[in-house]
């Protein structure tokens, strides 16, 4: 990490200006708020929106005074939106970030009941019952969840942190220089700021991406507990300073950070300006709420965890509008539902992409590919995808091949395909400036590159190929053209089994300020780069994914990206970038992936083994054991590291790594079911403990253990040489996966571990489905029978769901016959399979569904019945019940899971 290459709040002028909220003597005609209270004046009320004007308190009249327009609206999905724009010069509106309905469809807005009284306007969304109280002077908005009492879920501008630097008509010299790069900033300062207080909260989560704790630490304290934002320089009381703070606010600015630190508020490759707040009241009620700041410009966020006053946050962005969606909650699941209703849910991944991916910078040539592929089969280790990094190209001209080492790419890919496997190649957004490179030439002739600040000349930046231009993917025409480049006849040597990896799309510009683009570069429509920076990578990712979808006849694409923004979940997975082979990086990968999950982007993972450096056998093995549970599971390594394919760490470790990867494959039916749930509801696949146990004050900061869905608690080994790990099990019944031993939570204890052990606990009351036969790939597992895992609660009951579809098309979205969702229940010693109820989503049509997988085994933990026979009344079959220790297995029912039936244990 080279701190001197990057800015801090202090060296980012807008942050330095806006952070303290100190009133300035300069022209109040150009700044609203910022140390001065603002008041709101109702302008209009319609069925779906209330509009107000905002002026500085003390401004004489409305005409001629600086002013901004506020729109307050509510969504049928629950969010309340407060949008503040410059009246004179409207701010940039990010496109294709929100889902189309939210962006364009009036009927996505709730009908409002508006009542005005002295000094305030009450707004209630008729469909949802969510309410907003707009206080006029000083201007503030309190948002209440439906049916909640007098404590708001969140308050906008409670602390008077509001600020908006308005556009100026006169031209001026506003340039700003950092590290020898000058940003001309022709439009002058256009920073915006506001605060949000979560009055009930003890913890806040989200605003990825950074390598830091799951529960966000305070960055700063208030001078006064009741009012103001860090005002003045006076002394704070002891109680206000008793919590240590980071000092530096959390930054969101997509950057290619070389060798990032394992604990830092510094922002990394992607940004999601979404935060979740959570608290438990004295009466053990829980409230979860959230906020999404819809703005892709650079921003900083201060967090102040303030005891019984809740959590205060202050958001400061360089440009754009104040466009805030408050998510009233009140559960973690509802917050994510409300958020993903705005920005979309996880797209259904192709099934193969949930298997294990083997990557390295670089697999050198076709023979290397062949040998690595063979290595997996020789060691009987499953994997699905082999990856090629930048060296496979002809001089970093993407979508070409270095013919000296990859003379027959199509044959190479077809050979992998013959064993059910896929390949991924890397394609980055910088385009080598070489007239003989058709992609460069064509885009140049079409004027498809990002322009210099003169608005005319193509920007020229430095990346892997040397001098490069950058596709202006903010332009829909460019994206359309780019998508076409993935057709089989355009991308030579590609096949339908070749998928894509987008790296460096922050964008990374080696010779640019902070290793990225100048903020005054010009995009489509004359938009400055500063306005779109954080969404740039997503636009590129979108265009690539669209290209693959088209190429594969409308089937699901798979494109991995490094940069991301709100909405990336609709496009594809991301990984946490260039981490290091270091125990601390292994440990921090958990809060990083968990944070992404509660920020709507659940399909993510860290490079297994650590990108930089050489992991020893123990670290490598432990990392695979964690990777089993990452939603995206890929091993990757830097060019200069030693080879580290799974079988290179000695026989004992090979066996353990093989088990870890096989366990991933065994869990795929469950993981796939969880992905479908995420696609439908926004719930993450890999979940923080607080998400599943929001009322348990002991888990709000837990980041060394997590849940896979609702059914499994995993406490991986993250410490070198560990002989035991401490485990905390929340309230309920739990079964140790390995031994079947039953525990009653809440409970803290130590579990002894050997290198082969990963403490995993099955949660009483849940059922999930596995495929227990070791195979070499997801394709090879297709027809395999199922094992149902039942973990009974204290009443001998459990339930769960199973979802299946073809794993590659979108037919599930339009045809009931293309999927099935089954409800699995266990009670009174009876196991039942039936169509899912409405509360679990559409049941689909199990009868016409092509997958009639048989259940070969039902494994029951905590069974009270002692008989050794189970019977199915419908088929008049009976089955043995085979006991291994405390665990009972119903042997080989061989009934299709698509069929409704009940099996009773005698």
């Amino acid at each position, binding site marked *: 990490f080279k701190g001197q290459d990057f800015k801090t709040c202090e060296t980012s002028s807008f942050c330095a200006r806006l952070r303290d909220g100190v009133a300035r003597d300069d022209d109040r005609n150009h700044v609203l708020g910022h140390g001065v209270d603002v008041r709101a004046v109702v302008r209009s009320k319609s069925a779906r929106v209330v509009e107000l004007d905002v002026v500085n308190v003390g401004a004489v009249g409305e005409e001629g005074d600086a002013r901004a327009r506020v729109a307050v609206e509510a969504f049928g999905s629950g969010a309340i939106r407060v949008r503040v724009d410059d009246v004179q010069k409207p701010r940039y509106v990010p496109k294709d970030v929100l889902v189309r309905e939210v962006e364009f469809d009036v009927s996505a807005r709730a009908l409002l009941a508006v009542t005005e009284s002295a000094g305030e306007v009450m707004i209630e969304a008729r469909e949802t019952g969510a309410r907003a109280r707009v206080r006029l002077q000083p201007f503030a908005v309190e948002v209440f969840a439906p049916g909640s009492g007098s404590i708001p879920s969140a308050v906008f501008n409670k602390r008077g942190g509001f600020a908006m630097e308005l556009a100026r008509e006169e031209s001026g010299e506003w340039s700003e220089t950092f590290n020898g790069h000058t940003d001309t900033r022709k439009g002058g300062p256009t920073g915006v700021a506001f605060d949000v207080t979560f009055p009930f909260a003890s913890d806040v989560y989200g605003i990825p991406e950074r390598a830091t704790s799951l529960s966000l630490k305070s960055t700063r304290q208030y001078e006064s507990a009741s009012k103001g934002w860090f005002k003045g320089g006076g002394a704070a009381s002891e109680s206000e300073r008793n919590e240590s703070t980071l000092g530096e606010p959390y930054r969101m600015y997509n950057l290619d950070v070389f060798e990032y630190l394992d604990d830092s508020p510094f922002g990394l490759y992607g940004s999601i300006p979404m935060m979740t707040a959570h608290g438990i009241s004295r009466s053990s009620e829980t409230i979860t709420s959230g906020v999404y700041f819809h703005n892709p410009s650079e921003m900083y966020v201060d967090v102040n965890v303030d005891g019984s006053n809740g959590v205060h946050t202050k958001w400061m962005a360089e440009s754009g509008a104040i466009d805030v969606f408050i998510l009233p909650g009140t559960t973690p699941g509802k917050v994510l539902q409300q958020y993903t209703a705005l920005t979309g849910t996880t797209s259904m991944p192709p099934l193969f992409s949930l298997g294990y991916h083997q990557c390295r910078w670089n697999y050198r040539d076709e023979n290397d590919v062949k040998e690595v592929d063979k290595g997996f089969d020789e060691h009987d280790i499953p994997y699905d995808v082999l990856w090629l990094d930048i060296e496979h190209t*002809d001089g970093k001209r993407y979508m070409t091949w270095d013919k000296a080492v990859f003379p027959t790419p199509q044959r190479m890919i077809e050979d992998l395909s013959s064993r059910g496997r896929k390949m991924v190649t890397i394609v980055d957004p910088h385009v080598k400036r070489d007239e003989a490179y058709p992609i460069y030439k064509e885009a140049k002739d079409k004027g498809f590159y990002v322009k210099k600040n003169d608005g005319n000349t193509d920007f020229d930046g430095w990346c892997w190929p040397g001098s490069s231009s950058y596709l202006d993917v903010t332009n829909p025409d460019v994206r359309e053209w780019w998508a076409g480049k993935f057709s089989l006849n355009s991308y030579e040597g590609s096949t339908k089994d070749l998928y894509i990896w987008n790296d460096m799309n922050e964008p990374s510009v080696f010779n640019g300020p902070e290793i990225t683009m100048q903020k005054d570069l010009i995009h489509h429509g004359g938009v400055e780069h500063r306005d779109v920076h954080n969404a740039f990578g997503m636009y590129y990712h979108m265009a690539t994914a669209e290209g693959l979808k088209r190429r594969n006849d409308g089937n699901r694409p798979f494109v991995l990206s490094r940069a991301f923004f709100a909405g990336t979940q609709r496009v594809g997975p991301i990984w946490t970038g260039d981490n290091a082979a270091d125990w601390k990086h292994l440990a921090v990968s958990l809060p990083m992936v968990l944070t992404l999950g509660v920020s709507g982007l659940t399909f993510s993972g860290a490079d297994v083994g650590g990108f930089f450096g050489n992991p020893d056998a123990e670290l490598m093995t432990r990392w695979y054991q964690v990777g089993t549970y990452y939603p995206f599971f890929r091993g990757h390594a830097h060019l200069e590291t*030693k080879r580290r394919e799974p079988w290179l760490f000695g026989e004992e470790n090979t066996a353990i790594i093989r088990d870890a990867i096989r366990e991933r494959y065994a869990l795929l039916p469950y993981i796939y079911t969880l992905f479908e749930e995420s696609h439908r509801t926004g719930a993450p696949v890999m979940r923080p403990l607080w998400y599943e146990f929001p009322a348990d004050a002991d888990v709000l900061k837990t980041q060394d253990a997590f849940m896979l869905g609702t059914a499994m608690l995993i406490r991986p080994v993250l410490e070198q040489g560990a002989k035991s790990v401490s485990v905390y099990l929340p309230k309920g019944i739990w079964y140790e996966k390995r031994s079947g031993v039953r525990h009653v939570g809440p409970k803290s204890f130590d579990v002894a571990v050997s290198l082969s052990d990963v403490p995993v606990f099955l949660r009483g009351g849940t059922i999930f489905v596995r495929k227990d036969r070791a195979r070499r790939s997801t394709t090879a597992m297709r027809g395999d029978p199922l094992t149902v895992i039942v973990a009974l609660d204290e009443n001998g009951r459990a339930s769960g769901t199973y979802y299946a579809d073809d794993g590659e098309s979108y037919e599930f979205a339009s045809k009931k016959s293309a999927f099935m969702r089954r409800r699995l229940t266990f009670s009174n010693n009876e196991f039942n399979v039936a169509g899912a109820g409405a509360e679990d989503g559409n049941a689909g049509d199990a009868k016409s569904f092509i997958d009639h997988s048989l259940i070969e085994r039902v494994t029951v933990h905590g069974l009270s019945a002692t008989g050794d026979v189970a019977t199915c009344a419908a088929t008049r079959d009976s089955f043995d019940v085979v006991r291994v220790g405390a665990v009972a297995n119903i042997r080989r029912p061989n009934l299709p899971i698509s069929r409704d039936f009940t099996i009773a244990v005698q």
Partner: protein
Amino acid sequence: DARRRHVRRGVAPIDHHRFTETHTTFQCDDASTVISIDRVNDEYCDCVDGSDEPGTSACAGRGNDRGFYCVNAGGVATRVPASRVDDGVCDCCDGSDEDGEMGSVKCANTCGEEARARREGLMKTLREATRGERRRAKEADKARGRREEWKRERDALEEKIGEKRKRVDKLLREAEEAEAEERKIREEEEAKRRTLEEMKSNDDAPNDDAPNDDAPNAAATTNGNDEGDDENGRPTEETTAGEDAGEIIGETDEERGKRIASQWISNDDAPPESAEETGEDDGNDAPIDARVDEGDADDVVSSGRSKLRSMFDRARRLLKPSRDEALAAQASKRRDAHDAARRELDDMNDKLDELRAKVDRDYGPDDVLISLSGQCFEQKIDKYTYSACPFGEAKQDDVRLGKNVAVRVDDATGSMTLKFENGEGCWNGPSRSLALALECSDENRLASIEEPSRCEYAGVFHTPFACSPTMVSNLENELAELDRVVAAASRDASRDEL
């Protein structure tokens, strides 16, 4: 019958007695459990060790996977892991892994072809090994006693060097005496001249040769950054972090790009595509590890003591004043005589070092590789030309991969590897090294070199010296075994048919 085939699916003939449909029970390998024979190959894993499902995938990943036995009629019987059974991919050459009740593909029997191909391969290897072994034996005869020869040469040379050294010492004494004489005379004359001059004049101003070259340039580079005038209190922000920011002042865009790129790649200071940066594109991509040419500094050392010395001598002569020609000529002649003798001595010492190294070196068991000493082999592989000199140096183009420091012999197989170490250093990493595995063949040839891990090269060298009579007979046995096994597998298959 079908029932028997079902029970015996995936079972080797040697175990058929346990997998018989007329038995009522089956005992798991680990003897922990006895199950009904109906539960063998019934697609459910009953034995903890997985032994009851040799012909299905039901126990794949459990217990001790013995593998599915492929009969492979017409070829060689093999085992494949249980995970491959009925997975939609043909793994046994007879396709028997894909014909179970869960199977979904039809596999062609390719065993005959495979066996033929394998036989041909084996024949070819055997031919090469036979020729190679013959060549090795012949060369071994020639090479016998080579080490003794070198030892004799060494001893003789040591003796000669002793004599030479005496002569050099004598010549040195003579030269020094002559020079001392010369110096004495010259100093006397010089003293005389100086007295004369002092007397003659005090006129000339003491205009010493002032050092007017390279006046220290005291003017500090002015920081040309004069932006940020903040005249009317306008919020013109100046947040230049300046020199503290680690920026290199005056760096061009391109240089900055390269510098940042080099963070990711430890490529000295060159970015990955450095050869292309000049813009002209000749399609000749610089490899990712394009390296800075480190010049010939090393060649100077390796070219020996005498070359250095003669350069030094020449310089000294040029500097020498020549006042008194006669005396000087005399001294110079003596000095030259000494220098020439000294150079000869140095050459002899270089030769001796070489001989000593040759004599002390390990050439593998029975000095089998001694004939390779002094030979070099070159091969173009992908983009590079590799050269390897056993007991010398290996290179990738001009990059030194290391010197051959040892012959490693694998205890189990007897196979030999030449280890080249201490090649050119990798920035932030190890020095380059090469492990060259020797494989028996009828000719000496550098067959392949790869870089599986950064800067750790691995290659194969074909050579008759890796052949041995045992190897030839092993290959003969293998061939006979192949023929036997193919015949047996066909017999088993036809018996199964009955």
